[in-house]
């Protein structure tokens, strides 16, 4: 087990390093000198050279990479070209919106998908199954940014229950913050829930066909009890993997959704940074997001092993 963990951790670090290298190289080969962008086209060569030296741009590429990635290890993500503040501060400030949004979406999607999927599986082939899976089939096809607009039209403009856009900041109180996030989170969560519900359904159906379900029924368990005690726990193990994969979708989804709802999150930061050619911010932010996806997948693997005794406990014979 510890060997497995060690191997996985090494793979995690290597993948993260490779991801950072890919981002760094991609940004380095981009045309355009950051110093020239900051100073504008009319800058004098000597000021340009001075700024380049200050930004470390005159150093060899390999050294710049090492310096940048070394900074990562101590939480220094560089200094924003345009805001002249540490990128880490910018990220922390924006993550306070994006992270709760992604987590809320993941929670909502799970809370909706698993009961729906289990219900459909238990009614397999009958009206309840066909109806819920029909809705899920449509749900998978709905683009989340359009769903966001529709939710705004319904809940904000027509019913007036929730704000249409913007974010008051957490200083305005937990409730006000959540109110601003609930529609975007729903827009992100519902299409994901549709996918997750379909996965849950087929996983539960597969498990219900297993011999041990018959053993459970032969013990005297009701169909319902066999479903919840024996089928669902087993069926959810693969669902956890899908949830991990969805994290990546949700991260990408926030970037567009934050535009729909004008939320000051990481997605907006990416757009602003790109628009202003604040390349160091883009570079560090993308790397950070890639690393978080890698870490989440790593955690999912661990959770998978922990949930399935066949992986976590060796044979005794």
């Amino acid at each position, binding site marked *: 087990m510890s060997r497995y963990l060690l191997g996985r951790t090494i793979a995690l670090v290597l993948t993260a390093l490779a991801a950072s290298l890919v981002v760094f190289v991609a940004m380095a080969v981009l045309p355009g000198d950051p110093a020239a962008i900051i100073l504008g086209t009319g800058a004098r060569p000597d000021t340009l050279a001075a700024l380049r030296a200050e930004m470390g741009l005159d150093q060899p590429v390999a050294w710049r990479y090492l310096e940048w990635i070394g900074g990562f290890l101590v939480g220094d993500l560089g200094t924003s070209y345009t805001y002249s503040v540490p990128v880490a501060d910018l990220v922390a400030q924006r993550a306070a919106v994006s992270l709760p949004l992604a987590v809320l979406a993941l929670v909502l999607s799970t809370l909706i998908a698993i009961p729906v999927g289990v219900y459909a599986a238990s009614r397999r082939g009958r009206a309840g199954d066909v109806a819920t899976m029909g809705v899920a089939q449509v749900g998978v*096809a709905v683009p989340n940014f359009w769903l966001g607009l529709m939710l705004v039209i319904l809940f904000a403009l027509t019913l007036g229950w929730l704000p249409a856009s913007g974010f008051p900041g957490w200083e305005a109180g937990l409730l006000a913050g959540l109110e601003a996030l609930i529609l975007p989170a729903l827009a992100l969560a519902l299409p994901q829930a549709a996918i997750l519900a379909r996965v849950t359904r087929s996983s539960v159906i597969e498990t219900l066909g297993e011999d041990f379900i018959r053993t459970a029924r032969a013990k005297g368990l009701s169909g319902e009890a066999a479903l919840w005690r024996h089928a669902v726990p087993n069926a959810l193990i693969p669902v956890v993997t899908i949830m991990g994969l969805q994290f990546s979708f949700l991260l990408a989804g926030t970037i567009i959704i934050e535009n729909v709802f004008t939320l000051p999150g990481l997605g907006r930061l990416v757009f602003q940074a790109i628009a202003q050619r604040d390349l160091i911010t883009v570079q560090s932010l993308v790397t950070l997001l890639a690393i978080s996806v890698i870490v989440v997948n790593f955690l999912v693997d661990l959770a998978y092993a922990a949930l399935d005794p066949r992986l976590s406990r060796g044979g005794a014979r």
Partner: protein
Amino acid sequence: MSGVVRKTGGRRLPAASPSLVVGLVITAIFVAMALVSLVWTPYEPTALNILNKLEAPSLAHPLGTDFFGRDVLSQIMAGAQVSIVVAVVAVLVGAGIGVPLGALAAARGGLVDDVVMRSTDLAFAFPALLTAVIITALAGPGAVNAIVAIGIFNIPVFARLTRGAALGLWKRDFVLAARCAGKSDLAITIEHVLPNCTAVLVVQATIQFALAIVAEAGLSYVGLGVQPPQPSWGKMLFDAQTYIYTAPWLAIFPGLAITIAVLGLNLLGDGLRDALDPKVRRAR
């Protein structure tokens, strides 16, 4: 003797898959709409008519008009062109690079396989849409860059799928026979392995096609897809957002178009998978 009947099961629906039929019909309509728009639309999609701006749906304009008085139906019809072209080319780019990579990994194994597989792992670490946004934003908006940005993330999908399917085939007897006959790995891949992967690849292509349509709409929505005046569904949604209070139908119809097109392709993919793989049909 008591003749009691215990009813243990309810009525079940027949096993035949309507997904395939419905998916096929929707996809055909979607393609036909794009083709028809090449020669005919109710109005010129890009024709401005400020006098008729923001009209609600009516007989003259079934889906209404936008802020510049352009006919929404005509725009949606013409917008299908962009969706199809960008999505098809992006999927072809992805498959064109991914399939050979996957086939190579399966044929050679060892280090080549490791390199290809670890590269796909790495690619999956980058959220696809986010990265597509950054690529188009930095390289400049437009159809070609959108295709490249979306196509890149199809490469690992096709590479993995092809490798998985091909690995199984390489163990089969007819491939062993071909090897014994002295055929090269390349010849075996082309003659025996790839033809037998077609079914799974076609199913996946359908699904990737649907994803590419959403991705294209997403890019256009944030202003990074095809540029005006060429109509595009994502761009229409972006424009509609400004008038969401006064003309909500502007936001409804392009999104419906995306949803229905994607739904049709997903149904088609499901139906094809069921039709091509009897094992899956049983599990449904």
